[in-house]
């Protein structure tokens, strides 16, 4: 057993201090020449480069973030739109499960990257191809998480509902769906991270905008500053999306608010 957990404020202060120490150490090792600034630019250089990319001259950074984020969100939402209902169906019917499981097991192990050649052949390198890559990378996982979530709904709750006079359809609507929702959402949160890896890979291979493209061209031009700005932008964007996602969970799962605080 651990002692008392730290309060939020203390956690924030300790975390911030650690980040400052880490950045300072990084800055120092680069400045005194222990690490070649070409391979790893100092944080101050990265900040400068970020400022250039965002505000001066090129002004491409926000555009890239926006591009990548919309690709992620649209592909992700499409996969959820198809995957969640299908997963629910599979979770609720052993027949549908038996029919679709083999197909899912064939698609699921394929990395999103392996879809790039075919998708480029079919769809070119436009937005549609990016959505398709994200979709293919996410879809099977959404399905698997949703099936698992549906199967984990407590049978006794379904019994209780039937006992109170609910029809099978009412059981699905009032018990199975809300019962599966928390686990579906935590599954989707994992999938959202997968969606980012898909989009970044797709942008590195064939695109003319987006963070993946920016990182790749940075490397081509030996601009390590740009590479790192791109990477950090991914981190920050994912972080923000994660916070937004938590907001969605907070809204949709009012009965779990107490638990998440504890």
């Amino acid at each position: 057993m651990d002692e008392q957990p730290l309060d939020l404020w203390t956690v924030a202060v300790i975390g911030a201090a650690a980040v400052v120490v880490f950045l300072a150490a990084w800055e120092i090792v680069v400045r005194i020449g222990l690490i070649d600034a070409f391979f790893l630019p100092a944080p101050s250089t990265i900040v400068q480069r970020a400022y250039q990319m965002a505000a001066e001259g090129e002004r491409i950074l926000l555009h890239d973030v926006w591009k990548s984020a919309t690709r992620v969100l649209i592909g992700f939402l499409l996969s959820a739109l198809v995957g969640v209902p299908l997963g629910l169906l599979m979770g609720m019917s052993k027949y549908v499960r038996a029919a679709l499981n083999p197909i899912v097991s064939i698609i699921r192990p394929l990395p999103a990257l392996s879809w790039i050649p075919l998708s480029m052949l079919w769809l070119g390198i436009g937005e549609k191809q990016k959505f398709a890559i994200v979709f293919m990378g996410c879809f099977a996982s959404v399905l698997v998480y949703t099936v698992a979530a549906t199967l984990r709904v407590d049978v006794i709750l379904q019994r209780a509902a039937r006992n109170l006079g609910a029809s099978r359809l009412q059981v699905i609507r009032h018990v199975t769906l809300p019962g599966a929702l928390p686990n579906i959402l935590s599954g989707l949160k994992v999938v959202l991270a997968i969606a980012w890896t898909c989009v970044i890979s797709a942008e590195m291979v064939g695109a003319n905008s987006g963070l993946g493209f920016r990182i790749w061209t940075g490397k081509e031009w030996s601009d390590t500053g740009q590479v790192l700005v791109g990477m950090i932008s991914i981190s920050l964007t994912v972080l923000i999306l994660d916070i937004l996602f938590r907001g969605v969970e907070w809204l949709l799962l009012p009965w779990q608010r107490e638990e998440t605080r504890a």
Partner: protein
Amino acid sequence: MSQAIIRANGVTKSFGKGKKTVTAVEDFNLLVNAGEVVTLVGPSGCGKSTVLNMVAGFLPASSGQILLEGVPVTGVEPRCGMIFQAYALFPWMTVRENVEFGPRVNRLPRVERLKRARRYIEMVGLTGFEHAYPNQLSGGMRQRVALCRALANQPEVLLCDEPFAALDAMTRQVMQEELLRIVDQSGQTVLFITHSIDEALILSHRIVVMSARPGRVKKVIENNLPRPRHVDVQLGDDFLRMKRGIWKLVEEEVVDSMSYGN
């Protein structure tokens, strides 16, 4: 005056096929009259829960018949209100939404529903907690909600599957008296399963002692102890004499079932 609500005629239930067939309940006969509280007592594994699940229509009998007000039980029976040991409350619904669930799926008008919910919430002493979620309540209070939810559906029979077994001794005592008060007030018919002889003696008009597997009726005992059965009754000579008698009956079965096991 006494009208039969539940009648079980030669009910047998076996599970599995061929050599692995296990007979859980054999030639089980039972009569529960309107307004009566009947408890089924027996060692664990004697088929008590199986009987209850057959009355509720969750399990079909292998042979024999269960009649509810003269009509055979063929499917899940909304005329039976079930209370589970594990509460089986819907975690995503507030106390009031849980209580309203039965009337809601049975399409009672909204105003009527609210009125009914308020009445039963008051009856079990949960006023002020209408908007709490189950995970914010103690075990005793959760079981109150479950009781309330079952009552709000105004069932012909209340089926209780060891509802207080998970509660601490003191809460259990309070809940038993509470149930007795509500039942005496409303004339509710109750079929109650327990492995606690004390609980059976406190609650019931009649006690059905079951034999170890396969479960049959070993003896039916009339319980004429004065009601309400507060602590002074529970420490009285009559109570203790009956307890001793029942324990002797049950003890043989427990010893029996233990030699069966392994």
